[in-house]
């Protein structure tokens, strides 16, 4: 039971982190290297909100405000990114990748200047542990699971039910066809990037309280998200969900049985194996 809970908790984190990246990648075929930094900014925004507001309104409310602020700030960053880089460099995925990589250093440096390079910790908005038939789960981890479920379900409903979601799916499947149907792909791209970035920010808000926050926290997690996207499959958001679950379970089991030090190696081995067998990923379609 404890193992199951741990699996769930880790899967939720991977899912949260990879979801925004997979959305942007799946729809626009671009990789935002600064996604990790957006995540980090979300965590810092939450930190600021909690440390200033929690005496007045209490921890949980301050955290909720922090999450909204985080989403707004990172969404705005996504908008700026779309304007300044994605639109001008539209047909050059490599140029976008490298300029977002450069952007990630710019953001990192700025955050180091403001908050210092040392990690900070956020006071958890929810204290205590929850008991599940003998297994325990800290409440703040429950928040992460909740956020992941809400995000994934919300995104699913949005993509499947709403008009904007339908447009996004059309562009993801066939950008040229969508254009012919009168869908303004640039607008869809902007919405997607704002959405994906906001998800990164919310994820930062959720993760901040359970781990130390530092200017380098995004970069350290990003490679795992890359592996998840690759294994999940090109342009397939639900593939990323499945891959997050696979690694959530695999990594928890490995740590449980004392093989935690080989995590990176196994993750990479799984990725390379999947690439060898099916270069387009487990759930990807061949391009």
């Amino acid at each position, binding site marked *: 039971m404890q193992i199951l809970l741990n699996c769930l908790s880790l899967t939720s984190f991977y899912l949260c982190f990879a979801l925004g990246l997979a959305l942007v*990648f799946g729809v626009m*075929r*671009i*990789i935002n290297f600064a996604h990790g930094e957006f995540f980090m900014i979300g965590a810092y925004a939450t930190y600021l909100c909690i440390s200033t507001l929690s005496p007045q309104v209490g921890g949980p409310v301050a955290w909720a405000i922090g999450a909204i602020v985080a989403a707004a700030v990172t969404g705005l960053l996504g908008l700026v990114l779309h304007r*300044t*880089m994605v639109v*001008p*460099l539209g047909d*050059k*995925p*490599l*140029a976008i*990748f*490298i*300029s977002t*990589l*450069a*952007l*990630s*250093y*710019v953001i*990192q*440096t*700025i955050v*180091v*200047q403001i908050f210092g390079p040392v990690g900070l910790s956020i006071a958890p908005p929810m204290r205590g542990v929850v008991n599940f038939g003998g297994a325990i789960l800290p409440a703040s981890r429950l928040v992460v699971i909740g956020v992941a479920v809400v995000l994934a379900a919300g995104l699913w409903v949005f993509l499947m039910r709403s008009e904007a979601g339908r447009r996004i799916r059309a562009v993801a499947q066939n950008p040229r066809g969508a254009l012919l149907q009168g869908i303004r792909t640039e607008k869809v791209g902007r919405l997607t990037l704002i959405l994906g970035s906001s998800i990164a920010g919310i994820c930062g808000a959720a993760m901040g309280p359970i781990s130390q926050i530092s200017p380098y926290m995004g*970069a350290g997690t990003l*490679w795992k998200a*890359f*592996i998840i*996207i*690759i294994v999940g499959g*090109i342009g397939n958001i639900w593939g990323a969900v499945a891959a997050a679950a696979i690694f959530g379970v695999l990594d928890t089991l490995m740590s449980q049985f004392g093989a935690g*030090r*080989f*995590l*990176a*190696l196994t*993750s*990479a*081995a799984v*990725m*390379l*194996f999947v*690439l*060898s067998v099916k*270069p387009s990923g487990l759930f990807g379609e061949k391009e």
Partner: protein
Amino acid sequence: MSAFRRDLMTVCALGAALVVGGFVGSNYMLGVLVLFGMTSILVLSYRTITTMGGWSFAHIAIMGIGGYSVAILSKPPFGLPVLVATVAGGLFAALFAALLSYPVLRTRQYYFFLSTFAAGEALRQCFIQFREITGGTSGIAFIERPEILPNPSSTLEFLCLVAAVLVLLGIFYASLDASDAGLKIKAVGEDEALSSSIGIDAWALRALAFILGSFGAGIAGGLFATYNGIVSPSDINAMLMFKVVAACVIGGTTRFSGPILGLLFLTLIEEIFRVVPEFVPMIWGVFVIIAILFGQWARGRLMVWRAKNA
């Protein structure tokens, strides 16, 4: 003057400039030049990989293979001469690239840089986790300088060695670039489907570029290790990878002079902002973004200009 000769001249001039600079410059300058020379090897070998149309993000991790090979092979029980160990390090790096090329080279553009990035990061984790061999986070210390130098502790002599290796590898890469294989590698980089359709084995040539480029990275890693006297996972940092990529982006990769000038530019920024090193990555980043956006803008203007004059 043919492109091949121009590349040879670039490499020889760079080697000569390093040595001359070493003789006239201060001690501090000497250190900068050694780093510049070693990074030049990285950048030139990286350029070779980019000609096949893929930007690898595993170059620095592969460099680490060279560093660890030297650290391990030059000590007992192997006790190989440092230079021999360095060459072996280059070969190990090439071998690793060969193994990696089967899965990784099946991927294209975004997938290629994602998968190389992840593979490189995993390799770095391996250096940390296999403590019995690699010494974990603290790495392996007390690596000797090459015995071949009359005075191993002299930085000037080491600089001459770096310059010599740089020129040798530069000649190798320049001739590869102008050779039959090099022309085909560039053809694959330009249009893979067309190249396959006329009988070029695209996969083999991409693998060739990746393997031979990684050989240079391994050699550079060996030089870094013996110069610093220590290898550790912190050598394999994202900053250095970014520096190499940025040099190629800012300078362009068509000819050898591009990445070298790009690297020179980055090094100048690094030295100008020496008192506030924490800002260097940001300034590099800003210049990379400017270079990319400006390049795009300039290409657009050029097309408009051509259309008007056609």
